[in-house]
């Protein structure tokens, strides 16, 4: 149990850091909407994993990747507003999941479970996180520029389509990994909230990146610890920790 706790804390901390870092690129409205449906798309995968007894992230992964590619294609092919597309993908995930999600296990799928983090998970998750972090760092400037102005990025010879896809796939990865801890309903929050808090407090980009990553990591540790102390759902507590930091950031911004 102690080992399990340690592993959860370590994995949670690093997932939080990478999620926060990735989220700091979600500057435009369009981008911040995409994490939501991706989170919900983990649900069918989580349901399958629970039924057949394999790893939750592994189950979530193909669905989330599929979702990322769907959103990417939708955005290119249609001229519909992103909000409409989001609603389509969003409800698709939930409705498929509810078709065959075993209801007595639904809790894990929806709000996460730290006891699902084992030793072998850690061995796989940590290198995957390192890779996600590295790729994010590599594409950071380009994606940032695309957020500032797509026109400008295109004139600079940046392939907007390519970088958008890579970015979506990175988010998909972190969402699939996060689903195990936080649950499918709320994974979007671990990407979106830390950067919102960081933005309230930072003046420059370096500052902003570091704060977003830190807030991501801290809220994970806090949520996991509180969950163990009070025996309450871990997913809820992680998100609530995030929201507490967000409120604090608003107060600190004012003074």
């Amino acid at each position, binding site marked *: 149990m102690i080992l399990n706790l340690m592993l959860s804390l370590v994995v949670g901390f690093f997932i939080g850091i990478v999620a926060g870092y990735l989220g700091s690129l979600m500057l435009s409205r369009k981008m911040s909407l995409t994490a939501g449906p991706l989170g919900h798309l983990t649900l069918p995968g989580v349901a399958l994993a629970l039924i057949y007894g394999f790893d939750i992230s592994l189950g979530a992964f193909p669905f989330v990747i599929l979702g990322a590619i769907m959103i990417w294609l939708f955005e290119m092919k249609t001229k519909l507003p992103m909000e409409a597309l989001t609603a389509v993908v969003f409800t698709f995930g939930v409705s498929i999941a509810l078709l065959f999600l075993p209801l007595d296990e639904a809790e894990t799928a929806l709000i996460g479970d730290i006891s699902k983090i084992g030793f072998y998970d850690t061995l796989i998750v940590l290198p995957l996180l390192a890779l996600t972090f590295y790729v994010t760092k590599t594409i950071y*400037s380009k994606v940032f520029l695309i957020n*500032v102005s797509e026109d400008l990025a295109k004139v600079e010879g940046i392939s907007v389509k390519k970088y958008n896809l890579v970015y979506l796939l990175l988010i998909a990865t972190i969402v699939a990994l996060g689903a195990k801890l936080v649950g499918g309903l709320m994974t979007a929050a671990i990407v979106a909230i830390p950067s919102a808090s960081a933005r309230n407090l930072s003046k420059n980009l370096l500052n902003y990146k570091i704060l977003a990553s830190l807030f991501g990591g801290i809220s994970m540790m806090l949520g996991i610890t509180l969950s163990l102390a009070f025996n309450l759902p871990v997913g809820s507590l992680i998100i609530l920790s995030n929201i507490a930091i967000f409120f604090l950031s608003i107060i600190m911004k004012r003074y």
Partner: protein
Amino acid sequence: MSETILSVKNLNVTFNEEKVINNLSFELERGAFLTILGPNGCGKTVLLRALLRLIPYNGEVSWAKNVRISYLPQGFTHLALKDYPISVKEFFELKNAKDAEKYLEFVGLGKDIVKKNMGDLSLGTFQRVLMAWSLISEPNVLLLDEPTTGIDVQGEITVYNLLSELWKKGITILMVTHEIDIVYKHSTSVLCLSKKGFMCYGRPEDLTPKKLREIYGFGIKIYRHVR
């Protein structure tokens, strides 16, 4: 002998189901300073974006082979940069520019500017930073979309003097504006668009008051954006 740097043939652009550019053809020489003139909503920005291949069009747009194009979109309205936590130095680093100071100095900005936040700059300074930023890739063609919108008279003069200097260095400039005085002062050629689709292309000297009246309708008004 002057060489053609841009050749546009039968350009047609439809934007929001409305034909904005209708059968436009013109050629531009290397080293020209072209002003694209016309009232609001006549398709000046659309033309620039078509030339940059940012929007779909019919017809032919061909640039000379060795062009390095930089583009300055319309200030704050198109660049949401004001909302992002990013310093001037970091903004330059987005483009891998190590020697930001060199370019900032060229546009007349001191060293201490690099630490400032992009969002805290005045409109005029912001525009100059953007201009410096667009010069990093050492362009030989510069496209600008109303670079002085919202800038006070003093700032405006600075921007136009800078453009003039760049032009003297051999950079071909294509600038959208609706400020007519610029045409006579700085440009070597002028392209005018109007809502009726009337177009003229030639030397600034050919732009007579009568022609201006045709482009702008009755009387000439210069609109300045005030913030």
